[in-house]
């Protein structure tokens, strides 16, 4: 584990010795893993294991106490995420994310949500507003292209006919898919999804799995996701990282994870006499509470 080099050309995201402390509470403790390019990597663990904290560190909402987060683009450019300001994680390092409690612009239409996501290219096309204010044709062309891109995504997530409805009016499952489409409209190298299947019915979950596979296969975007729905995780992920109490307890393909005794212990709990044994194995003595959120 310690020998993993940050310049691994195969990895889109390399997390090295990530530690996040809130006062005396260590939410993430010396976590290292790697998400390979073109993979769907799942980050799983029981409630309060620190998954969302890891996400918030990767996407720039938290500044890690220790550790290094390297994001490598397909063209070889590397970005140290922990050093970038919050918005630059998306704009420069091209990491997009969704939120556990959906954060759409509910008073804006579905289409407008996707247009806001294309802020940076549109801003350039509008000459940082000055040229756009004059109504030059260059901006109008860029806007048409942005609308076309948004429409293509709406087509993909089957929401085209609701493009002009307010996002807040959509049913829950549609909102989840729209948030993913919005993140994809920023053209990310890595898409981070925080519990995308939460609250979805089985049919919607299957749709979601299809959408994620489409993103991985057709858009040169790698996916990192947090998920509780094990059926979804086992079905779509290429690689699984398991967290418990802020530490990594397993890392590997889904088949291996399913049979890993530590994972089973973390999820199902173990007999009382086995706890000390398992704790020793995990290298942990003090339980840590509550996962912190932004």
């Amino acid at each position, binding site marked *: 584990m310690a020998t993993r080099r940050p310049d691994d050309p195969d990895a889109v995201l390399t997390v090295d010795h990530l530690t996040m402390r809130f006062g005396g509470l260590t939410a993430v403790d010396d976590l290292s893993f790697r998400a390979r390019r073109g993979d769907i990597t799942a980050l799983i663990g029981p409630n309060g294991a620190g998954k969302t904290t890891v996400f918030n560190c990767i996407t720039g909402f938290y500044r890690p106490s220790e550790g290094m987060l390297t994001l490598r683009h397909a063209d070889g450019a590397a970005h140290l995420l922990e050093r970038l300001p919050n918005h630059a994680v998306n704009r420069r390092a091209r990491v997009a994310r969704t939120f556990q409690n959906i954060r759409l612009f509910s008073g*804006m239409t579905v289409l407008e949500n996707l247009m806001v996501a294309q802020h940076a290219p549109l801003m350039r096309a509008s000459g940082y507003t000055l040229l756009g204010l004059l109504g030059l044709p260059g901006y109008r062309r860029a806007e048409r292209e942005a609308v076309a891109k948004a429409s293509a995504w709406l087509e993909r997530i089957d929401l085209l006919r609701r493009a002009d409805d307010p996002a807040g009016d959509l049913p829950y499952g549609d909102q989840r898919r729209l948030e993913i489409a919005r993140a994809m409209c920023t053209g990310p190298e890595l898409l981070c999804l925080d519990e995308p299947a939460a609250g979805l019915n089985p049919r919607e979950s299957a749709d979601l799995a299809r959408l994620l596979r489409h993103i991985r296969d057709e858009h040169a975007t790698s996916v990192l996701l947090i998920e509780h729905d094990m059926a979804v995780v086992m079905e779509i992920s290429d690689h699984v990282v398991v967290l418990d109490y802020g530490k990594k307890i397993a890392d590997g393909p889904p088949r291996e994870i399913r049979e890993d005794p530590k994972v089973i212990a973390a999820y199902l709990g173990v007999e009382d006499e086995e706890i000390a044994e398992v704790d020793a194995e995990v290298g942990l003595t003090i339980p840590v509470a509550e996962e912190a959120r932004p």
Partner: protein
Amino acid sequence: MAAAQTRASASPAAILRDAGLFALAAFGLCVPIVSYRTDLGNNGLELTPRWGLVAGLCAAVFVLRVVQRLVLERRAARVALTPSPHQASEPVGAEPNAGQRLPRLGLPLFVGFALFLPLIAALASGGLSPARYWIDLGILILTYVMLGWGLNIVVGLAGLLDLGYVAFYAVGAYSYALLSTVFGLSFWVCLPLAGLFAGLWGVMLGFPVLRLRGDYLAIVTLAFGEIIRLVLINWTDVTGGAAGITSIPRATFFGVPFKAGPDGFSGLFGLAFDPMHRIVFLYYLILALALITSLVTLRLRRLPLGRAWEALREDEIACRSLGIDTTKTKLTAFALGAMFGGFAGSFFAVRQGFVSPESFNFLESAIILAIVVLGGMGSQLGVAVAAVAMVGGPELLRNLGFLKAVFGEGFDPNEFRLLLFGLAMVAMMIWRPRGLIADRMPTVALGRRRAIGKDLVREGHG
């Protein structure tokens, strides 16, 4: 149901025809009752024609009937088409009726009326000089419309509560006052400079302040407004202190002064000299400035920057996750809002010819903010209507002399201004807590734009 259907689909032409009939009936009633007044003159009864009043009454009946019909149409349409607000979002394929189109027609109507106000006022009161009161009132209202539209960028679009907007108004006014009295620069050079200075102050205030949110932001902006006022009072060497700056040069017609003689405005255009020319010019100047504010805002809403402002109002964290630099975006909103405040301020200075810190107290900020909130945050028409009500309403009270007949000779309706204000505010809070026009029009659509209900649109939190 059938009746409701036909009523719901009444065309604007039908409404106008109906209102025309009402006006005709009013005219018929007015001719015998109002059109001539009999006065006891030197040689018996004298007849004073009052056709202007007749025309005014008929016009009032016409407008009121149109408004009544539109309100009823809207209500009927809402009942007929949308049993629940959420169903309203489903495309039902119904054509919007006249009432629902009102907000879209409203702004052109407002602009059209504003364009012809001096003419209407001159005709109604028989000459330019008697119309001065109305044109002055128009100037005052338009100044507040412009300030409201400027503040609307900050509060309505970006969702940043700014209680110190009057500071930028003051910066604009003093910029013009100082630049013109000290350096002798003309109004047309000072106007952009005043806007620039106010915008710079907006950025300077914005940098330290915009990390605050909600109530904290409001308090700091309030303090900033007071600081500017206190600096103006105490920096006597430059600002003249509480006495202010006097004899600020008047506006010129693009270099041609408004004065009697061959090289003045009237001489150049072969008109008889009339001091009202300057007033009418000022009226159209502020109208143009206000319209520029409005057009820029409307256009900005369709640009990525404007969309980012609204997105910021909806959800700041989501904005950051989409790569939007929230600090810069807020700063631009602050700076642009301040810039329009600065333009309005330099207009204020050129109109008054005199500025003092008195004019820029907190009450002004409160009135401008009240206009934006009453109008409905983000709505151009709502802000215009609210400015007319907030600034024009109190003026109406001055003219309610006939109430003396009811309440006795000592009754002065002006004293009840604030009371009525308070009552109006309470009524608004009960029936229209989100302002007159709280719906939001989308900035881009694949099909037809449909207004978004106020229950979905957020107000921002700093």
